[in-house]
């Protein structure tokens, strides 16, 4: 499942120093749970995004271990402190070894 995976991230463009901002992320991914069966009754093997993490200038904000029970197109909403201007890095790791990343800058002002 390396096709059609598209990360979307919503981060405010500017923030004041020390502000707590809300971040929303969504990545289009099937999240095949490993529980479903195809027409012949064979189990469709699990294929999911197994970890997600969000960092700011190299410091971790949140990381998540996912399982097959997370819905299609995994969505996360969480909060982050902005100590300075810099870049948010979002990383998703797929079961098939693919890594999807997205970067968003935030300015102080």
């Amino acid at each position: 499942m390396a096709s059609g995976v598209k990360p979307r991230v919503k981060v405010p463009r500017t923030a004041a120093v020390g502000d707590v901002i809300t971040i929303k992320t969504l990545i289009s991914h099937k999240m095949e749970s490993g529980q479903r069966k195809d027409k012949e009754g064979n189990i469709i093997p699990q294929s999911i995004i197994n970890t997600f993490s969000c960092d700011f200038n190299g410091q971790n904000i949140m990381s998540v271990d996912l399982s097959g029970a997370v819905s299609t197109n995994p969505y996360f909403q969480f909060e982050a402190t902005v100590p300075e201007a810099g870049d948010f890095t979002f990383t998703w790791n797929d079961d098939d070894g693919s890594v999807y990343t997205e970067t968003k800058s935030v300015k102080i002002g």
Partner: protein
Amino acid sequence: MDFTRRDALILGAGAATAALLPVGVFAAAGDEEIAAFTGGADVSEGGVELTAPEIAENGNTVPVAVSAPGATAIMLLAMGNPSPRVATFNFGPLAGAQAASTRIRLAGTQEVVAIAKLADGSFARASSNVKVTIGGCGG
């Protein structure tokens, strides 16, 4: 072969037990996941908040939110799913709040549990019963 009334009752009782059994098995798996996360430590009530709908029409996307001030990690479990583990949130130094929300799959009406690992090493638990109209595990 003729079924007597007695045979039918015995068969029915057997079928009912078989139908109930998987729920028990899943629940035990959920308890094992909790034990693996806490390392067998005591889990107290309170200190963690779990927001989940009372009734979810579609088990494929059930919005849930967890929040535990001061927690380092929160584990989310669906006790009635074939595999109870849902997600584990680990919070870093820049987390604005130890809170997150996501969408999960629920196989059927069941208990959703959040276990928070607090900064002092203790564990807190919250649970919520969610009624699911259409299950979200395919099949």
